[in-house]
C-alpha cells in the first residue's frame, strides 16, 4: 500500500532549478535510498514527497492517489529528520504519542501503540524521560518511534545517522534494516554516504544536480555503473579511472577498474609502480600506488597479510573481465 510514483516532477526556487523533470517509481515495501553528493537535490526530492515543499510542476502519486496538492499530514507518510526534531518539552512517551494525539485517538489506544513501539525500539525504560536526557542513538530511536506509531504508508528518512558517531551509526544502520524487514513498509532514505546506501538499500537512486544518474539494486550499480559519475560514486575505495593510451587499448576513452579487481605482485604484471601510502585495515590493506604512468595514483586492495613498504617497486595486473569501459560522454560501453 505504499507505492510512490513521481511523474515529471520539477522544483525550482525562483530562477534556480533544483529538480529538472524527473520520473521515479518506488514500489510498495521497497527500501529505496537516494544518494548523491551534497547539494544534488536528494533532500529536496524527499521534502517534495513529504509535502514540506510544493512541487513546481508534475505529479506525485502515493498509493495511486494524486498527492502533490494535499497537505503533508494527509499523505500518510512519516518522516525522521536529521536533527531528530523531537519536542524538547515533552517526555518520550508524549513525543511518540503526539501524532496519535493529533489524530484524535483515545488514550487507551495511544498508550497501547506507544508501549508497542517502545518495546520494538527498546525504549520502554526511557518513556518518562525528556529528549534532553537521552543519548544520540536513543533520540534517534524516539524519532523512529514517533514515525512508527502512525503506521504510515511509507517512512521518509532524511540523513538520520549523520549526527551519530561511527560505531553507533553502524548499529543504527542494522536496526533500521531490521525494522524494514519486520514492518515491510516502503522506506525512502536520503544519505550522502554510499556505504549506507549499499548496505541498506533494495534500490539505490543516484542523483546529481537533480538528475537521476542511475536507479538499481546495490549490486547492479556496483557491477554495471551506467556512467562515470556512478562508477566513481559507488564503491569504497573509489574505482580507479584511467584515461589515455591504456584506455585506448580497450577501445574506450576511460576505463575503470576497482581496487579489489587488481592483482598485486612483487615479480611482474601489466603495470608497475611504487607504493605510496598504505592503509592497513587488518582484513584488507589498501595500497596507493604512484608512478604507474597511468595518470592518477592507483588504489589497490590486497589481503591483510600482504606487506609492501613505502617506496617498494610493485607490479599490478587488472582482471580483464572486470574492466569497465566508458566513452567520450562518460557513458558505459556495453
Amino acid at each position, binding site marked *: 500500500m505504499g507505492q510512490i510514483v513521481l511523474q515529471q516532477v520539477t522544483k525550482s526556487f525562483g530562477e534556480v532549478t533544483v529538480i529538472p523533470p524527473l520520473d521515479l517509481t518506488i514500489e510498495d515495501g521497497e527500501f529505496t535510498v537516494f544518494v548523491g553528493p551534497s547539494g544534488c537535490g536528494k533532500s529536496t526530492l524527499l521534502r517534495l514527497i*513529504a*509535502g*514540506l515543499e510544493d512541487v513546481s510542476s508534475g505529479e506525485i502519486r502515493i498509493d495511486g492517489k494524486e498527492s502533490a496538492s494535499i*497537505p*503533508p*499530514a494527509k499523505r500518510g*507518510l*512519516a*518522516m525522521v*529528520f*536529521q*536533527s531528530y*526534531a*523531537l*519536542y*524538547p*518539552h*515533552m517526555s518520550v512517551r508524549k513525543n511518540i504519542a*503526539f*501524532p496519535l494525539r*493529533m*489524530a484524535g485517538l483515545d488514550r487507551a489506544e495511544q498508550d497501547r501503540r506507544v508501549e508497542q513501539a517502545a518495546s520494538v525500539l527498546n525504549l520502554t525504560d526511557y518513556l518518562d524521560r*525528556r529528549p*534532553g536526557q537521552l543519548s544520540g542513538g536513543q533520540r534517534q530511536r524516539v524519532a523512529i518511534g*514517533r514515525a512508527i506509531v*502512525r503506521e504510515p504508508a511509507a517512512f521518509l528518512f532524511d540523513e538520520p545517522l549523520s549526527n551519530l558517531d561511527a560505531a553507533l551509526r553502524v548499529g543504527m544502520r542494522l536496526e533500521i534494516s531490521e525494522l524494514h524487514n519486520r514492518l515491510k513498509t516502503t522506506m525512502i532514505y536520503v544519505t550522502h554516504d554510499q556505504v549506507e546506501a549499499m548496505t541498506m538499500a533494495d534500490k539505490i537512486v543516484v542523483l546529481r544536480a537533480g538528475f537521476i544518474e542511475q536507479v538499481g539494486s546495490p549490486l547492479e550499480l556496483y557491477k554495471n555503473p551506467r556512467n562515470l559519475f556512478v562508477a566513481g560514486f559507488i564503491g569504497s575505495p573509489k574505482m580507479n579511472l584511467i584515461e589515455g593510451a591504456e584506455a585506448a587499448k580497450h577501445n574506450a576513452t576511460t576505463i575503470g577498474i576497482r581496487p579489489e579487481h587488481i592483482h598485486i605482485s612483487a615479480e611482474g604484471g601489466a603495470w608497475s609502480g611504487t607504493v605510496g601510502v598504505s592503509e592497513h585495515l587488518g582484513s584488507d590493506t589498501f595500497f596507493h600506488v604512484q608512478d604507474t604512468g597511468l595518470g592518477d595514483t592507483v588504489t589497490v586492495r590486497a589481503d591483510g597479510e600482504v606487506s609492501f613498504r613505502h617506496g617498494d617497486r610493485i607490479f599490478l595486473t587488472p582482471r580483464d573481465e572486470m574492466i569497465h569501459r566508458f566513452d567520450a560522454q562518460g557513458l558505459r560501453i556495453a
Partner: protein
Amino acid sequence: MSTKASRSAARLMLAPAVILLLGWMLVPLTLTLIFSFQRYLPLRGGFQGWVGFENYVRFVTSSAFWPSVQATVIIVGGVLLITVTLGILLAILLDQPMWGQGMVRILVIAPFFVMPTVSGLVWKNMFMDPNNGLLSHLWRSVGADPIIWLSDASMLSIILIVSWQWLPFATLILLTAIQSLDSEQLEAAEMDGAPMLSRFWHIILPHLARAITIVILIQTIFLLAIFAEIFVTTQGSFGTRTLTYLIFQRVLESQNVGLGSAGGIYAVILANIFALFLMRIVGKNLDR
C-alpha cells in the same frame, strides 16, 4: 586567574565598583529605614522624635492603602497580559519573511526609546484629549460621543499607555526566542498532523515559556515602580493611585517623610517577595 596574587589584584580592581554600587543602594535604603521610625515633617521643623512602628501602622491602616495596592496589581497585571499576548502575536508576525523586515523591526521597537514622561504627555494630549485628541476625532467620525479617557476610563488609559511602552520589549525578547526555534520541529509537527493552531499551542508556546517568564519577571519589577505616566496624566486621581504614587504623595504632598518612608519599606519588601518568587520560577524553567 588562579594565582593568589592575581586573585587579590582582581578583588582590588573590583572593589571600587562594588563599593560604589553598595553605597548607592545601602545609603538610601538605610536613610529610608531611619526616617520610617521617625516623626519627620520638613515644613514643621523636621525631626520631632522617634515613634517606633507608628508610621508602619498608620500607612497600612490608612483608607488609601488597600485601594493603592489594588490599583498597582491591576495595572501590573493588565500591562503584563497585554504585552505578553500581543508580544507573542507580534513576534510571530515579525518572524515571517517580508519586504522591509529590518525597517519594520526598528519601527516596532521605537516606542521603547521614548521617555515615560514624553509618552505619557503624547498620549494625554494627542490621543486621549477629549476635544482635540485623535481618539475623540475617531469616535466623533462614527457619530459616537468621545470617551473622556483619563477620567472615565482612567485605569484603562494608564494600562494602554504603559503597555504601548513595554510592548516592544516583550516583542523583542519573544522574537529572538522564536527565531531560536528549530524549524524541523515545526515541520515534524506538521507531518505529525498538527494543524496551525496546535503547532502554536504544542510547539511554539512551550518553546517560548522561558522567554515569557523572563519578560514577566523583568517587566513586573519595572512596572511596580511606574510613576511618570501617572504623574503627567491623572496625578493619581480617578482610582489610579498606585503604591508608588501613594508614597510620593505622603512624602511630597503631605510633607510627611516618616510615613512615606514606611510605605517605601513596604514597597521594597513587596518587590523582593515578588522577585524571589519569580526568580524561583525562572530558575526552575532554566533547569530544563
